[in-house]
């Protein structure tokens, strides 16, 4: 039995006769953060957090702690019981998840789990040494475990590994970005990532402004992943659908996007960060969200499925309790590849437009219409005559994502994994698998700063 599962089962026993479920999240990680080619903020984390859910007469109370000893668990159980006693019953509470098996997935690599501080610092040095410009970013690796046990007999554990390198090569007036992520350390190449960032940065010198307006554009996977993720918060979650505030409201079954666009949430895919079960203990399922431009559905957890009241079943997307107000969310978006061999080939399809490497500071302006705003950064270029041409300053965009997805002249063939874990709170590796895309419409609404530091 894994350490996490053993702790989860001890926590359930501490609940002392109550109906209870324990969720354990363990982390052992290192992150070597660098700036100006020097590691300046190296962080090593060892932690295990227990969330104990106690149910009394349909009333759910939750307590969280990180003292794994018997005293700590007894105190945790007392706080969870008090919380349950304080809560009114929820008529839509589906009860604790019954005993079930999880999906069989990959996602653990012993070599990655075995990396220590010296290895992480060494990989950071590899990236730094490969860069001819000052390098900013990090190398990280970690082992995390999610374990769930309950009085229903549920007993699940998944130990995952992840590794990532992020490289921003930057000097005054020039900056370029690249990243790689994988659950296998062998799946990332810090030196190659740094060289990609440097090559991009070298092309951004002498950036100029353009007039705001609507442009055709090529979005690299880094940019498109971020845009999709923000759109998905309100478009592909079932809580938003139930509350009639989602873009999906009234549109399921309709063709709303370009037929070249197909999107799934697939935590089972070994090219991503595979997950066996969700935070409610339900097995992960692949969910078709968009097929050939037709909006097919959203993701569900047990709570939202119960609230739907129409026989809807969970798809294995129950959120952590701290994010319950968001409802079930797709943590493993996967965009089907197209026919182009490269982003340069997409530029040929666009002919005249802009090329975007990465986005910054997105915000949802109108969730129902899928309008987002944000900035481009670290590699924005003009596309002229079908070629990626002169560099541009950072641009403010305000786009309707459905309009952006309505006409996609092309997508690259091979999706790549874009890391979307920002390492706040407990580590939970996740990302978006996506190719680069060409769109007929990307609305530029302002001019920002020049590239570089």
């Amino acid at each position: 039995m894994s350490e996490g599962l053993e702790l989860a089962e001890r926590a359930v026993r501490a609940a002392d006769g109550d109906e209870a479920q324990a969720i354990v999240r363990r982390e052992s990680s290192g992150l070597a953060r660098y700036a100006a080619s020097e590691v300046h903020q190296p962080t090593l984390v060892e932690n295990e957090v227990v969330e104990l859910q106690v149910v009394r007469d349909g009333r759910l109370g939750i307590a969280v702690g990180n003292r794994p000893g018997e005293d700590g668990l007894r105190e945790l159980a007392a706080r969870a019981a008090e919380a349950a006693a304080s809560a009114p019953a929820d008529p839509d509470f589906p009860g604790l998840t019954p005993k079930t098996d999880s999906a069989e997935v990959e996602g653990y690599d012993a070599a990655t789990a075995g990396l220590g501080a010296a290895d992480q610092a060494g990989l950071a040095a590899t990236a730094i040494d490969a860069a001819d410009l000052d390098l900013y970013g990090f190398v990280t690796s970690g082992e995390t475990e999610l374990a769930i046990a309950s009085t229903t007999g549920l007993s699940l554990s998944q130990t995952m590994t992840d590794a990532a390198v992020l490289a921003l090569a930057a000097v005054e007036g020039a900056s370029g970005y690249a990243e790689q992520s994988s659950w296998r350390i062998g799946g990332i190449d810090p030196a190659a990532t740094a060289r990609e960032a440097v090559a991009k940065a070298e092309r951004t010198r002498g950036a100029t402004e353009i007039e705001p307006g609507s442009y055709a554009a090529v979005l690299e996977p880094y940019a498109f992943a971020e845009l999709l993720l923000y759109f998905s918060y309100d478009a592909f979650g079932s809580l938003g659908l139930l509350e009639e505030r989602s873009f999906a409201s009234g549109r399921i079954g309709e063709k709303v996007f370009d037929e070249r666009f197909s999107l799934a949430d697939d935590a089972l895919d070994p090219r991503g960060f595979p997950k066996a079960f969700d935070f409610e203990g339900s097995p992960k399922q692949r969910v078709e969200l968009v097929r050939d431009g037709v909006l097919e559905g959203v993701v569900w957890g047990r709570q939202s499925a119960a609230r739907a009241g129409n026989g809807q079943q969970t798809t294995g997307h129950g959120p952590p309790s701290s994010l319950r107000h968001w409802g079930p969310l797709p943590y493993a978006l996967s965009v089907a590849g197209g026919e182009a061999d490269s982003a340069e080939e997409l530029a040929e399809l666009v002919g005249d437009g802009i090329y975007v490497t990465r986005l910054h500071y997105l915000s949802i302006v109108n969730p129902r219409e899928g309008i987002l705003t944000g900035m481009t950064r670290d590699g924005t270029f003009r596309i002229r005559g079908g070629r990626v041409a002169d560099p541009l300053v950072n641009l403010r965009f305000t786009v309707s994502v459905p309009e952006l997805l309505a006409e996609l002249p092309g997508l690259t063939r091979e999706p790549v994994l874009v890391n979307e874990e920002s390492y706040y709170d407990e580590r939970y590796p996740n990302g978006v698998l996506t190719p680069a895309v060409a769109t007929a419409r990307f609305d530029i609404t302002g001019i920002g700063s020049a590239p570089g530091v």
Partner: protein
Amino acid sequence: MAAALAAGASYADARVVIRRSQTVATRNRRVDRLDDVETQGLGVRVLVGGAWGFACDNELSVENSRAAAARACAFAKAAPGSHRRELVPVEPARGEYRVQVEKHPFEISLADKVEHCLRAEAALEHEDVKVTAASVRAQQEQKLFVSSDGASIEQETVECGGGIDAMAVRDGMTQIRSHPSAHGGSSAQAGWEYVDSLALEREAPRVAEQAAALLRADPCPAGVTTVVIDAEQMELQVHESVGHPTELDRVYGTEAAYAGTSFLSPGDLGSLRYGSEHMNITADSTTPGGLGTFAFDDEGVPARREPVVAEGILSGFLTSRETAARIGSGAGGSMRADGWSRMPLVRMTNLNLEPGEGSLEELIGGVDDGLFLQTNKSWSIDDQRLNFQFGTQVAWEIKGGELGRMLRDATYTGRTPDFWGSLDAVAGPEEWVLHGLTNCGKGQPGQHAHVSHGTSPARFRNVQVGFRS
């Protein structure tokens, strides 16, 4: 400390943090969150050969503390780069600090907190409002800081807060109104008396009515006009366009890959015109009730009140001991860590827009044709903190110095120094409100900071409103 020094550290500090928090949230009359979180642990930061190292552990034992110190030193020794660091000296402090409250928020039962939310939610009921939400939160943090310089500091803070939201839906349109702030309400270092003062139940009918009315309001037209911005939105304007760019670690580029840098440079200190003469911004970790109030920061530097912008001129940066030594100005005092498992970073404490004169009514009275913008809805700013775009939940037309019709979907945009340069009035102390937010993100691994901003409504001329191309 002993283990770190034995392992080669020239300097070391350690923080033990025990944090307990409760969150109660209700949504559409059902309990959405009811949790009680208590975490503890120890973080050790070391300086070895000029390189930082940091390691942490949730097990509070002598053995684990020594192991964390050793791991931190090992990481520092392995860190690539040509490390040279100096820290401005600080007198090693020994002392205690505890926030005084009238009603400790943990003395209010969870059941009473649930009831508080449900009552407020009930008052949000309206036929067009499809989603009602209310939340309250409470936190107590105990922190022990020791350093190899000889500092030994115990601090205990207590926070609480709350807020309500009403989302109206009709004919494919959604509109939201919130009180007292968007995105989770407002918090303060205070007891439950602060939550009571927010008057969530009393304000709820207005919030619901306005959310519903927005469904029938005209969209805010695009154009260049005069805007009066309410104190709540000014909180975010100060935070994003003054707070973050004046963090000296960003100026030096150490946040470049994630949060970004700054349009400011070290040489701008004392000379750069940030805004008009009406712009006075102060960093004040002594503000009563502020979420960034303490006796000592997470480097053991005493709390202080310092100008950041004085009469429109950049007058100070937010600094750490390291960045203050590098620029040769300041003494640190803005280093804060999110709990025990993260390194301290340069963070805002309480960054306040000092009040001017007059009432909100007088500010509006000085506008012949413009807009009054209330309550943040969306926010975005570029990596150097120059180009920003904010959306507000509601706008009100101003004609002839009087408020007119309600408008929806308002946004405004600008470039930071130009925008602050167009500031022509800040309302007086009677309009000044301290807002506290708990979701300021920075760092890798990520850290949330709790910060406050005291602001009055302010008036800006020639502002671009509207966003679509």
